[in-house]
């Protein structure tokens, strides 16, 4: 048995030596098992980007290939364009913001992007999975989330905040994050996607292959939504990537431009 294993290993090594690097490349991540942490749960650690970012990182062809790979693997398509299920009054507000082409976007003023919008931004983020917490380090806005997984409840003194308060737990092989205590300075994702302080976000991260995480996020906010709103996206591992610096305020000319456009818009509204 041992000899068989050794022989197989030696033969594999010989083949690899003959074929060289191309073989190593071909047998890379797609065939690798999902790594496991010491507690047996999938290890989400690594640097990831939403599939939408592949367009920017590698171009249209790679983006199309990623979407095709998702379809072949039975992963749900990201960004279906489905309208959020807003109540009429909230939907009217969203349409108003859309009509103004996004100049009211809190992100354009460099305010911290909330959950889940930060996951969909086209910059990578790193997940560091530890025994008692999961840390998410986002390139955009130098943002981070520390998500306890030791069973503690949400803190009682939580202040409303941009990224909210996150508590994590495992549901089988899926990492589930419950996020509460949001302020109202963020949009959920997309222009005009308003919410109240009662927003509750549930994120589900399932590493279904070495290279991918199925991300499913459900937003509940009965004051503005008619029902829970669920979005899905595939997060992709970026081997060799590292988190770099992205600073929003240095020369963000949108702040002045949009302020000018806002003033013009207000003046037009007053004159009507």
């Amino acid at each position, binding site marked *: 048995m041992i000899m068989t294993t050794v022989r197989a290993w030696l033969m594999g090594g010989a083949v690899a030596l003959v074929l060289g690097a191309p073989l190593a490349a071909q047998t890379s991540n797609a065939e690798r098992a999902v790594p496991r942490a010491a507690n047996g749960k999938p290890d989400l650690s690594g640097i990831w980007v939403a599939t*939408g970012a592949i367009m920017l990182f590698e171009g249209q062809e790679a983006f199309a290939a990623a979407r095709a790979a998702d379809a072949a693997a039975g992963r749900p398509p990201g960004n279906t364009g489905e309208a959020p299920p807003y109540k009429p009054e909230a939907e009217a507000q969203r349409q108003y913001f859309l009509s103004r082409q996004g100049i009211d976007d809190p992100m354009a003023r460099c305010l911290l992007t909330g959950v889940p919008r930060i996951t969909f931004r086209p910059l990578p983020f790193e997940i560091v999975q530890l025994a008692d917490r999961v840390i998410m380090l986002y390139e955009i806005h130098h943002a981070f989330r520390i998500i306890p997984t030791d069973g503690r409840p949400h803190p009682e003194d939580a202040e409303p905040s941009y990224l909210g308060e996150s508590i994590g737990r495992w549901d089988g092989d899926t990492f589930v994050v419950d996020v509460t205590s949001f302020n109202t300075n963020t949009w959920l994702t997309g222009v005009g996607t308003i919410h109240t302080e009662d927003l509750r976000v549930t994120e589900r991260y399932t590493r279904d292959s070495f290279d991918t995480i199925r991300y499913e996020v459900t937003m509940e906010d009965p004051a503005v939504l008619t029902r829970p709103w669920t979005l899905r996206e595939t997060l992709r591992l970026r081997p060799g990537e590292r988190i770099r610096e992205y600073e929003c305020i*240095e020369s963000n000319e949108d702040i002045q431009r949009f302020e000018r456009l806002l003033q013009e818009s207000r003046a037009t509204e007053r004159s009507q």
Partner: protein
Amino acid sequence: MRRPALLLVLVSSLLAARLAAAHHSFAAYFDGQKAVTLTGEVAGVEWTNPHFHFSIDVKDEAGAVTRWRFEGFPPNMLVRQGWQRDVTLTPGATITVEGWAARSEPNAGAARWVTLADGRKLAAGPPAGTGGR
């Protein structure tokens, strides 16, 4: 007023159909239906966040020069696309920029591609209407 010899190309409705709100709401300031391709001499480079800017002097057939200013990726993305600060884009070099013009500000645009004098074509900014939700 002399019109600079610009290649002002209206993009097809196929591309226009894909346009939507982008990074910092592209649509509020730039016009995704006003594609421009300009060749000129690099006049300046600002390697800054959250966008880098550069300007080029574009000469028309009569020799009149118009300075265009473009906005593009932040440095973190430029480096991922193969750019090097102070090396890739240097004042005086002749480059070709493909991108989109601003809605109202004259001679301003968002850069998508830059073709360098040595023929290399590098992504300089996001496509109009993409870049996350």
